[in-house]
């Protein structure tokens, strides 16, 4: 695919989904836990945007916030969350229920918890069809379910009366994808680790299915994954998060060729080779600071291999535009193109 998409500049017109300045705060023992602090996203029709980042950096939280799935004491604020021209924050709970699973659906990270354990898979699936597929008659449901399951590589015959715990993790993950794709109105699919429990042959098949949906239905996707091979395989654009903030936005080719943010650079360095020679794996030193920590400068400074100097500890870097690539990166190195890019490793 040649997709000229570059950075999310927040003012693009041709967008299905636009989120600006999302902030989500959980409460823990009466204290705020700012899980998402700076998050914006722009998705065009048919575009696949990858969302990657440190475990705990707020990826799942961001997606759940967009879909309006978090309840108090969690607090969600945003300048705008616009899906096909409508701001979702102005919708009633009833209208949001129609959006979820209708125009926008989510595939959750923990498949088993996304199903009701005491209902059979068939009955849960039929309920989704009754909500989102007015074109079908009740007696056509099972046929449609089997067809949708087949699309994700599951032979559902004899299995519709089984309960969620009777499926393997990878089977549930695929069933969830089939459920998410049931609606004909679907415009945006938010997929949280959709292929982690799949073997690579079935993963290839599911990715192929998602690509087909993109081509045939012009479906857009936000794909959260830790598997950078999946990002390389699928995405047009990538958003990188660290400690609740977007630290880099780049076209996928630029991301792999010339990552701008040191976190992205160090992340790419940690990809293990295959086959592996048994050499010790590179891992970033240290860990993410606790989210409630007061940090003046850059959140990545303590682990950064390319730290500039005291500015990194004192001043939070904004998302700077990267002129060479059209991307964005939150690093003080970026404004000076002479030192930006992968080469500056002297700290």
């Amino acid at each position, binding site marked *: 695919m040649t997709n000229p998409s570059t950075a999310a500049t927040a003012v693009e017109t041709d967008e299905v989904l636009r989120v600006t300045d999302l902030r989500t705060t*959980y409460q823990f023992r009466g204290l705020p836990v700012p899980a998402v602090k700076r998050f914006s996203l722009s998705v065009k029709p048919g575009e696949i945007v990858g969302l990657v980042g440190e475990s705990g950096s707020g990826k799942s939280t961001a997606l759940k916030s967009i879909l309006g799935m978090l309840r108090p004491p969690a607090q969600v604020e945003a300048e705008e969350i616009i899906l096909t021209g409508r701001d979702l924050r102005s919708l009633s709970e009833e209208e949001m229920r129609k959006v979820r699973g209708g125009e926008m659906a989510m595939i959750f990270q*923990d498949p088993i918890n996304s199903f009701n354990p005491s209902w059979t898979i068939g009955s849960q699936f039929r309920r989704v069809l009754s909500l989102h597929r007015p074109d079908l008659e009740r007696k056509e449901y099972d046929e449609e379910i089997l067809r949708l399951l087949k699309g994700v590589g599951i032979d559902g015959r004899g299995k519709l009366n089984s309960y969620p715990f009777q499926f393997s*993790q*990878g089977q549930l993950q695929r069933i969830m994808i089939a459920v998410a794709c049931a609606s004909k109105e679907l415009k945006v699919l938010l997929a949280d680790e959709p292929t982690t429990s799949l*073997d690579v042959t079935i993963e290839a098949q599911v990715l192929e299915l998602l690509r087909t949906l993109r081509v045939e239905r012009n479906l857009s996707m936000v794909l959260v994954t830790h598997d950078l091979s999946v990002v390389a395989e699928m995405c047009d654009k990538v958003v990188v998060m660290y400690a609740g903030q977007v630290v880099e936005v780049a076209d996928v080719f630029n991301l792999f060729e010339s990552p701008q943010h040191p976190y992205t650079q160090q992340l790419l360095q940690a990809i293990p080779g*295959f086959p592996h020679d048994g050499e010790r794996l590179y891992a970033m030193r240290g*860990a993410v600071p606790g989210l409630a920590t007061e940090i003046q400068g850059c959140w990545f400074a303590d682990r950064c291999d390319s730290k500039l100097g005291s500015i990194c500890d004192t001043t939070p870097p904004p998302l700077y535009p990267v002129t060479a690539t059209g991307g964005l990166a939150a690093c003080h190195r970026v404004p000076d193109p002479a030192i930006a890019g992968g080469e500056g490793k002297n700290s």
Partner: protein
Amino acid sequence: MTENVPTPAPLLSVKDLHTHFPVGGGLLTKLRGQQQIVHALDGVSVDIAPRQTLAIIGESGSGKSTMGRSILRLEEPTGGSVSFRGRDITSLSREELRRERQHMQMVFQNPYSSVNKRNRLVDIIAEPLRVHGVGDASSRRQRSVELLELVGLNRDFLHRYPHEVSGGQLQRVGIARALATNPEFLVADEPTASLDVSVRAQVMNLLTDLKSELGLTMMFISHDLAVVSYIADQIAVMYLGRIVEIGSKQQLESAPQHPYTKALFAAAPKPDPRLRKKESAPLGEVPNAITRPTGCFYSPRCPLAEAKCFTDYPRLETKAAGQQVACHLVAPSPLVGATQLPITPV
């Protein structure tokens, strides 16, 4: 037992293990005798020598988790035996089993369903210590902090509940819990699936350290071939409840024999957008553990299948020293070089 032979006695020995589940239908179908059976694990035998890591890879739904759970008797096997340190696990009483579990732990594939949602993380991690009466409350707490740090989490997490942490954070709690009693044997079921590559590297380095320093023996279940390549000594490949190929890591990586193993290695995506696959070949007919194909279970998907592949299930046979393959089309040892099957994508 053969104590003085050069190859050490296996720490874990699994013989012809079966775990079948009845599924579907209410009372009526049961009365009519129409109950269907899922052959989740269907006659698997493996040995793991001390300090070795056997990686299990294979199809989604092929029984990998069921095997891990059955070995620890978290699922009751319907046939076969498991011996650990020379003791038959399958015949132990509940109490004996409980004591044995201190030495054999599991990291569960789904962290959410394997923890009690009403417990705080500190209690979850310390649970094996409490169950086995190790230390007092304060030493257990101290150990929980250590364990959290080992997996890259700070003590802020001690008092959180499972729903108050991210997927990858909870997965690491599951690893910390499994390591709490310093077990000799660990079944790690997709322990790094929800971790970013850097945290994953940290966890993998931790496991290799435990292997070399404490002599940890592992069954390591994963879909991530790079991670398997890093940690495994032996690799077993499963398909629909059975092992279709097993051998050393070097053998499987350099000369995979079974068409499914080849398909797996060929399908592994690469972290480089320039190497994108244009399109993956169709998967063919997908298997179902209830209505299994006759003949070789892989035959409906196999690009090389011949007549007998559709009628007879191929036995797992030694094709090269230490490498066993269940495929009619792979000739035994002397001919292995001559009948190299081409690597075919899925």
